[in-house]
């Protein structure tokens, strides 16, 4: 006997479903399937919409963040990096200059000594210049050359005398200019001397500190073997320490006695040197600017003058001339 599986239609017929009922059932199943497909399609569309919205939101957020990061980079990080680079370059330059200061120690100290000598000389030059212009001025005032023409009590009047009276004051102004230059030079050299001396005093303090550390080393390392004093460091090193070789203990004893306090002091002094070096540079720049003003100072001089007012180059100033008859005459002003 052979058992055969009934077809769905046979099975349904055996179960008592009529063909009509079966067709209804098939239609309902198809309708349900269609609804499910429709629902799935709608759900898919919904999910696609959510996905698109999410992608869009994420893209906008990433773009926004990127813009913010870019902006933060441009406005904060980049300038900060530039500043750090500048500071680093300044530090490198500063260290280079400090090394140069030590390398050129003798020449620099000689320069400071010469600056001091020149400063004193300019004071002396200023005194002589002051004496000079005061002598010239006093002579002319005492002898009536401060008054023009007939208003003067002196005997010498006329065009030549007037031209002379008009132009001698410029000689006094030239003397005053010498005094001013001397005073300014003395002051400027004083600024340079102060800054330079401060720099080498700072270096001197560093060397004194190094000498103090060296002396401590010598005293504590040789005269008091086994001790390790110093300003704020460790205590004495015993001759034997468990777990350390004798070579290691000997090496520790040979090490510097400088404690943390000594090192801190040294670092502070080095920082002072750095500050003094910056001051030297600033004073140099400012003094150079002040000196530029001095170089350009042409007080009391005309465009035809070079370094001193020259009345002899002024055609109205009194001067001898030989007339057609071969006689020497003194002419001035409009009689020229």
């Amino acid at each position, binding site marked *: 006997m052979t058992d055969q599986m009934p077809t769905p239609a046979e099975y349904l017929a055996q179960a008592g479903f009529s063909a009509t009922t079966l067709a209804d059932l098939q239609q309902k199943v198809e309708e349900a399937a269609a609804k499910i497909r429709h629902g799935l399609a709608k759900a898919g569309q919904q999910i696609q919409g959510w996905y698109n919205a999410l992608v869009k939101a994420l893209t906008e957020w990433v773009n926004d963040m990127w813009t913010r990061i870019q902006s933060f980079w441009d406005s904060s990080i980049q300038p900060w990096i530039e500043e750090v680079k500048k500071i680093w370059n300044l530090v490198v330059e500063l260290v280079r200059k400090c090394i*140069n*200061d030590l390398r*050129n120690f003798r*020449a620099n100290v*000689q*320069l*400071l000594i*010469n*600056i001091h*000598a020149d400063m004193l*000389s*300019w004071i002396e*030059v200023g005194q*002589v*210049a002051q004496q*000079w212009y005061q*002598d*010239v001025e006093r002579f*002319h005032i005492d*002898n009536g*050359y401060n008054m023009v023409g007939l208003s003067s009590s*002196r*005997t*010498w*009047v*006329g*065009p*030549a*005398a007037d031209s*002379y009276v008009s132009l001698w004051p410029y*000689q006094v102004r*030239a*003397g005053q200019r*010498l005094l001013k*230059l001397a005073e300014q*030079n003395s002051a400027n050299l004083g600024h*340079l001397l102060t800054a*330079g001396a401060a720099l080498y005093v700072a270096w001197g303090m560093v060397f004194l500190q190094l000498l103090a550390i060296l002396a401590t080393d010598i005293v504590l390392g040789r005269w008091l073997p086994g001790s390790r004093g110093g300003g704020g460091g460790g205590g004495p090193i015993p001759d034997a320490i468990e777990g350390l070789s004798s070579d290691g203990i000997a090496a520790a004893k040979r090490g510097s006695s400088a404690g943390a306090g000594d090192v801190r002091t040294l670092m502070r002094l080095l920082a002072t040197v750095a500050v003094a070096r910056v001051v*030297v540079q600033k004073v*140099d*720049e400012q*003094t*150079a600017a002040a*000196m*530029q003003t*001095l*170089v350009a100072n042409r007080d009391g001089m005309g465009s035809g003058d*070079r*370094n*001193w007012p*020259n009345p*002899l*180059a002024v055609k109205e100033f*009194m*001067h*001898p001339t*030989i007339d057609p008859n071969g006689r*020497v*005459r*003194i002419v001035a002003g409009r009689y020229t």
Partner: protein
Amino acid sequence: MGGRTSGAISYSLAEIRAAAGMWHRVSPQLTQIDAMVQGMSVRSAAASTDLFPSSIVKYAAIVANFDASCQEGAAITDAIGDTLDTAVLVYSHSEQAAKAAAGRLAQKIRDLGRLP
């Protein structure tokens, strides 16, 4: 003052001579100042150091300018004195001496053009 008058001009030889003497007296003092400045030593020491690079360059320019001022000042003030001396000779009618003085003065004024 014992002066003389010639037209609109009056003069006293003593007055003009005193002024000339004053210029001849003060002129060497400018040379003396110049010598003091030339004896200064910062410029020579500055060549081997870079402690104050900008200032030293400007300082050298100032000192050179000061030197030139003193040299020109000494020459010009001396020539002013010579001009007054010549005027004294002219006013005192010393023709030959005045001509010689005028020639020397003209040469001095030409030399001023060649000063530093």
